[in-house]
Every structure is written in structure tokens, then in C-alpha cells.
């Protein structure tokens, strides 16, 4: 069972007051800390769990610059066998379509039974790369997968649907699955583990080696402007001691009909 997992390094944005950049097309990232996208963390863990069960290899891939290798090292430390980075300096150039083009071009030449991506990435929240890749690779796919079982040449997957429903599908391999958080409990990788994983194979590929034209990679989406949500009215700040706040709050809830 050979599994390719596409991963992304994203900024840690909880607790941070985001600042819009000068072009108003994105956010300032120079002060931010970066991590492996949470969904991808589950995806790589799932791939390693399957490998531990059915043998095979796990390859982690990312598109980005040298700094982005950090997430590949983490994948290697978790148990991936090798990693590939497609060297791209300015990720802002590409939208989901461009990224999916690059990734599927690389994945096409690799031996694989399964391709995993996270359901979405914590930065732009588009959630499109996985499905586009399946389309370009012309393979089956399932979304928001929360359970996988392999049964001779097929994968029995459970997808999360709206309203707490689950959908079970039997999919012919090779296939692409977008992995939902909660499918497993990703293991902790220690700093020592990451430092040791530096010795594992990490291949860097140039975009020019892939033979994709600039035209093919050009953006299909246009960002007009990025802005912080405007302050709206209707918010009310309750003041006073805890007792007063609680009784005021209760009164509002009763008035608005939330409670009787």
C-alpha cells in the first residue's frame, strides 16, 4: 500500500491580531509562527497507521520554499518514508487550481494506491485542492473521510455529512481521500525526532522540471480585496460584578425568547 500525502505549512492564527498587507490582497505573515496544517496532520497520521497495518510506503509532498520543509521533516519524524518539496518562492501566485495542478503532476509519476489531502487548509479555507487533484488524476475520491478500511483493492470509507450523518462508500483504488480531523489521534513528534528525521530523504523538485506551462498555472480566482470584518452594531457589554452580569444576562435571554 503506497500512500502519498499532500501537506501544507500554514500560519498559526489563533491569539493573533491579523494585519492586512499593503496591497490588501492578503495578511502580513512576517510575525507569524507556522505549523503543519491541522487536517494534514490527521492525514499523515492516517497514512502511517495504514502503512503500519498493510506495509508499503508513505510519501509526503508540499509546494513551497525552504522554510516549508519544516512540515515535511515533521511528517518524516512521524514515520513517512520520504518527502518531496516542489520549490516555489511565491505561493501567493497560485490559487487552489494551480496548487492542484502542480501536486497532481508530481503524484502522477509516483507509485500510489491512495492519495490523501486534508479537507481544507487553515489559511485560506478553500477546501478545493483535493477534489481538483482527483479530477486531474482521473481517480475516484471521497471527501471529509472519518474512517478507512482497506479490503482487497478497495477502500471502505466513511464520510462526514451535514447534520451528523455518515456516508459509507466502497471505493476502487487508486483513489484520493480528503481527510477530516478526528479520524485518529495524531502522534506527538519530539524535537529530537524531528532533528533525527533530517537524515531521511527529502527531494526538492523545480517547477520548471515538471513541464507545466505558466498559462496552466495561472489563477482561476481573483482576490479583489482582503479586509477585516467591519464592526457591527448590536453588541452589548455587560458591566458590574458577577451577580449583576449574570442576572442582566438572564434577563436578556428571557426577553429575546431564548429562555422562558
Amino acid at each position, binding site marked *: 500500500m503506497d500512500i502519498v500525502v499532500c501537506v501544507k505549512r500554514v500560519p*498559526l492564527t489563533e491569539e493573533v491580531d491579523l494585519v492586512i498587507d499593503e496591497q490588501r490582497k492578503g495578511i502580513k505573515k512576517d*510575525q507569524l*509562527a507556522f*505549523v503543519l496544517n491541522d487536517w494534514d496532520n490527521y492525514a499523515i497520521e492516517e497514512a502511517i497507521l495504514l502503512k503500519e497495518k498493510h506495509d508499503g510506503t508513505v510519501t509526503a509532498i508540499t509546494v513551497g520554499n525552504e522554510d516549508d520543509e519544516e512540515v515535511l521533516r515533521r511528517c518524516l519524524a512521524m514515520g513517512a518514508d520520504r518527502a518531496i518539496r516542489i520549490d516555489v518562492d511565491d505561493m501567493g501566485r497560485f490559487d487552489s487550481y494551480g496548487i492542484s495542478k502542480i501536486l497532481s503532476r508530481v503524484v502522477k509519476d509516483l507509485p500510489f494506491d491512495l492519495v490523501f489531502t486534508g479537507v481544507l487548509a487553515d489559511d485560506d479555507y478553500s477546501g478545493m485542492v483535493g477534489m481538483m487533484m482527483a479530477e486531474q488524476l482521473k481517480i475516484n475520491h471521497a471527501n471529509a473521510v472519518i474512517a478507512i478500511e482497506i479490503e482487497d483493492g478497495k477502500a471502505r470509507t466513511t464520510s462526514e455529512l451535514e447534520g451528523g450523518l455518515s456516508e459509507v462508500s466502497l471505493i476502487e483504488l487508486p483513489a484520493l481521500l480528503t481527510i477530516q480531523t478526528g479520524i485518529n489521534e495524531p502522534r*506527538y513528534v*519530539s*524535537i529530537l525526532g*524531528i532533528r533525527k528525521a533530517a537524515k531521511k530523504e527529502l527531494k526538492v523538485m523545480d517547477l520548471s522540471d515538471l513541464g507545466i506551462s505558466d498559462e496552466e498555472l495561472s489563477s482561476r480566482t481573483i482576490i479583489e480585496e482582503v479586509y477585516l470584518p467591519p464592526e457591527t452594531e448590536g453588541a452589548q457589554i455587560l458591566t458590574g460584578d458577577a451577580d449583576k452580569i449574570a442576572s442582566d444576562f438572564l434577563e436578556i435571554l428571557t426577553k429575546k425568547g431564548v429562555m422562558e
Partner: protein
Amino acid sequence: MHYGVHPALEHYLGIPGYLITSCILIVGLAIFSYIIYKRYLLLRSARPDLRFDSLLRRFSDLIIYGILQKRQPRYLWIGILHIMIFWGFVVLSLRTITLYGIGLKPGFYLPFMGGSLGEFYHVFKDIFEIIVLFTCIAAVLRRAIARPARYEFKHDKAHKFGAYLVLGLIGFLMLTDITIDASAIVLGGESAYWLPAAHSASYLLHGLGEDTLRVLYRWNYWLHILTIMFFLNYLPLGKHFHIMTAVPNVFLRKLKKGSIKPPRWDVEDIEELDSLGVEKIEDFTWKHVLDFYTCTECGRCSDNCPANTVGRPLSPMEVTIKIRDDAYKRRPLFALKGKGDPGDQSPSLIGNVLEPDEVWSCTTCGACEEECPVFIEYIDKMIDLRRHMVESAMIPKDFQDALMRFEKTGNPFGKPPSKRGDWLEELNDVSVKILQEGDEADVLYFVDSYASFDPQIQQMAMAIVRGLDRARVSFGILGPRESDSAHQVRRLGEEGLFQLLVEANIEAFKTCSFKQIVTTDPHAFNTLKNDYPGDLVVKHYTEFFLPLIESGLLKPVKPLDTADIYTYHDPCYLGRHNGIYDAPRKLLASIPGIRIVEMQRSRDRSFCCGGGDINLWYDIEGEEMRMGEKRVAMAQEAGATAIVSACPFCLLNFDDAIKTSGLEGKMRVIDLMELFVSTL
């Protein structure tokens, strides 16, 4: 005094006595050597340790804690009883050699013991025999009737038997030796009132015939030396091994309190190691294995362990005993070939001998180590077990998240490093310099994460900079260039991350020049002082400010505006780990008109607040109450209405505990510096 009885020359079933004595000695000592050799094998298979530095200090500790047993009377009466038995053993060892001697050669005596010195010794040993005998009786009665809770075991009842057996054996040895002397006195027909034990016993033997007395003498003699040999061989099998290992264990004790041992003493770069920490018993250092041998099962550690007190699944004593029992079981003394062979077969301790929550329950407060009469170490072992759990991904999600935030942002909150100095914005009355590259100051104030980011703890930092400013100290902070001190990280077992954060801080320290570091937090103080490389001059704020008050630079003048009765709580990492008990008390006492009471558990018996280390992020199942609640109740018992602390975590834990105990309005917690600054 033999009166015609010469065990060495008599014949038993035609075998001369000296031959029997020789056989007892040879066989007994051979078995004993074999057992010790087996114990040595496990010790040898363990990891290296450095324990032969500071020899002068080690020898003085050996006398104070080993020979004089300074820690025994921390439990007063039983401590005194133990000292009696110990000294009895020391005194009676000469008698034991002499008795074996006369079994080989009639009239044997040790060098210099032939004349009046020997007679003096005889009196001395007679007095000790009666002391030891009564001590044994008292100890047996205490165990059987008073049943101190600290001797109870959760996992195994068989251990109690050993204590009775050994006390019985010791008592029996005293009785037989007294009988030897007593029968000799009656045989000699003279009074020996200077031997109180033997003399008193001799009254019971009056009227017995000479032959009967000789039989008494003879058989008590043989029973005595046989019992001694049995005793000797029984010792290394259980807790009484401490009779041999305790004194070496004290000599080899850990000298640098507060620090955590490196993952391996013999390897500097952790990247060279295949694995970190302790998975199986052979991964402990040989000294830690010696600790397992030495445990006397006295239960003082667990009796003082805050985790144990509040019902967490941790009893330090049982940790030791479980590991020891398992090790002895897996390395049987006598086994058929190929069976019970040690080596790689030892299973992981976690899951087989210990449970994960046992290891996570420890707050590293050090109460157990402070109490142990034989200096058994617990914290380093706990951290080594955690190191293995971290490296093999056996670590609760809560810790994973916290560690990831430490790694990514240098603080446990996940706040951006650029905001680390933002607390200064709220400070209007004092201007604080953020040290840039090349800047100079006398004092580098190391704020650390909680005082930088937690709104409640920021008040502590503000009080400290106000104090520094008032005393006209030239100081600065590192602001965004400061990373977490990593005290927690190291004690969670994430050594690689610890090293990363230490490196970041050391790099930042190097860019500016300062004479000393002052910290908000006892934990930061401890790790900078004891864990960081190099010789940083580090002071906790309490230690730093005291001389400023004593020299009159700072004068508390304003009286307090409350009628509170204050009690000072010793933070573990200020008190027990670094011995700072008086500076904070003097600082508190300098406040005019303050009323102070002491809690019953104070100074080195202080009771942990619940811990800063890892305990803020993880709830342990089975806990009956929070440690903080227990401590707040103790403060109330002492008659206090305000707890004064000098540690961010104590403050947070007590603040929480006061609310959950419903004591709001009756009890409050305040940081020492905040209180002090309000009186300037």
C-alpha cells in the same frame, strides 16, 4: 566468660565445633556473596551516573545523614527508635565478630579488646542490647496496634511480613546473646550488676543445674550465630537491604538540588542516542537502581506527597517497590539455566509496572526527596520516564498542544512573541527599557511567559518593575526576544524542545550585557540557575529585594489598609529546591504592622499548590480534591485570611481554590511583591 563451655572445642555428632563454625561461615558467606553478585549484575547493566564529585561534602553528609541520621527525627519518636537500633547494630557488630571468633578459637578476642577496653565494651554492648530489645518490642507493637497508615500497601500485602520477621530476628538475637551472658554469670557464681541486661536475666536462671546452664549457653550460642548468618542472607532479599545500602546511598546522593539530570551522563549530544529516557529498568542509572535496593518502605515520601494526599494515583514509595519487586521477579536469584536471564527481555515499565497517570501525577515538588531518610531520588526518575513517553508519543493531547505552542511561539499560550512586551503598555508610572542588541543594564529582569501574558500575573511583573524603579536599579527586559524559561518543558520530558528554548534564551542573553538576572517565577529562577549551562547569576525577586530593604534603599512605610492575617506559603522551587525560606519571610515582616501566622506545614514541609509544571494543563483522574484547596484549608486552619505567595502558579492555583472552596470574602491570595510595593 566461658566457664567451661568452648563451642570451638566441643564435638557434635563427632564433628568439632570449629569445623561447624567454619562451615557456617563458608556456606553462609558464599550464599551471601552470590546474592550480592546477582544484585550487582543488575546495577552493572544500568546506565552510567556521576557520583564521585565533591568528596568532602559527600563525607560530611555521610556523617550527618548516614551515621547521625539527621533526617530520622523528622518523625520524632520512631526516628529516635530507629537511631537506637542503628547504633545498636554498630556497637553489636564487634560482638558478632567476637562470637564467631570464639567459635573458631577458644578465648578469641578482637585486638585491643582483651583488657579493660574489652570490659568497658561489654558493658556498653549489654546496655545497647536491652535498648534494642525494647525498641524492637515497641516497633512491633506500634506496627500491630497503632498501624501507621504510611506502612499500608495498595498493591501487595506480603511486604508487611518482612518487617515483623526482621524485628523478631533482631529481638531474638538480643535475647540469645543476653542468655549467653546470663548463663555465664550464674555459672561463674558471681554478681555482674554492671551488665544490666545480663544481670537481670541471670535472676531467672538461678537454681538451674550447671549442666542445664551449659546447655543454655551452648545452644543460645549456636542459635545466635546461625540466626546472624540467616539474617545476613535475608537482608538483600527485601527492604532490609537498606542496612547495607543506605549508608552508600547517602554518600552517593544527588548534590545539585533543583536540577534535572541530563538524558545520559555519558553522551552530550542527545542526537547520538537511539532513545531518550527510561523504558525499562536497565535504562535507569546505577544509582537509581541502588535507590530501588535501598528503599526501607517507611512511607515517609508518600505520607508527604501532595499527589498522594489528594487521591491521585501516585505513591512514590509504591513506585519504588513495584519497580523493585518486578526487577527481583525477573531476575530470580536461583533459576534454571536459560530461564530468568536478564537483558533485553525486560518489558516497558509503563503499562506493565506503572500506569501513565502515575507518572503524570507528580508535580516535582520534591516533598518526597526532602523527607527520605536515605536520599532516594524521585524527580529525575519521573522525568526520565516522561522522556521515554514523549519520545514514543505516549503523551496526552493536552500536553502535545502545549508543547506545540512552546515550540512555535516560545510560550505556552501560543501568543505571538512580538507581543511579549505588551504588558508594559498598561504601565503608566514606570518606563521599562526593552534591551536591544548591545544594550547594557545591571539587572536583566526575566519576566517569563505567565507574567508576560496572563493578565493576573502581569500584576506581579508590574509590582516588580515598580520596585526596581523605586530602588533606582538599572534594569531592562528582553521583551520579544525572551523565550519561555522552559522549566515546564524539561519537566514534561521534552528534552529536545528544552534545549531549543535554552539556546534561544542564551543567544538573546549574549547580545546585551548585564550583571545578574532577576526572575518573577521561582521555576524560571530554578531552571536558569540549575539547568542552564554556564554560570548565570540568577536571583528570585525575593532574594534580590531583601538587601535593598536592609540597606534602606526601599522603605515600606504605608500601613496595610486591611485587617488581614497573613501567612506565607513556601513555593516548592524557592524553598525545597533552592533553600530560600528566610528572604521572603523577612520581606513580609518588614511591612509595618503586618500580622503573620505560620501554617503547620511550612518551610521544607510546605505543601505544593498543585504545581505549575504540567498540572495547569492536565486533570488527573481519581483526584478527590485540588491540592490548592487542601492548602487553602491549611491556611484557614492556621487562622490566616490572606495567603502570601511568591510564585505565579501558586497565585493562580490558590485563587482558583479559594473560589471552588467557597471561601471568597474569607480568604484571599496575594503576591508578596504586590503586597510589598503597596506599602512603599
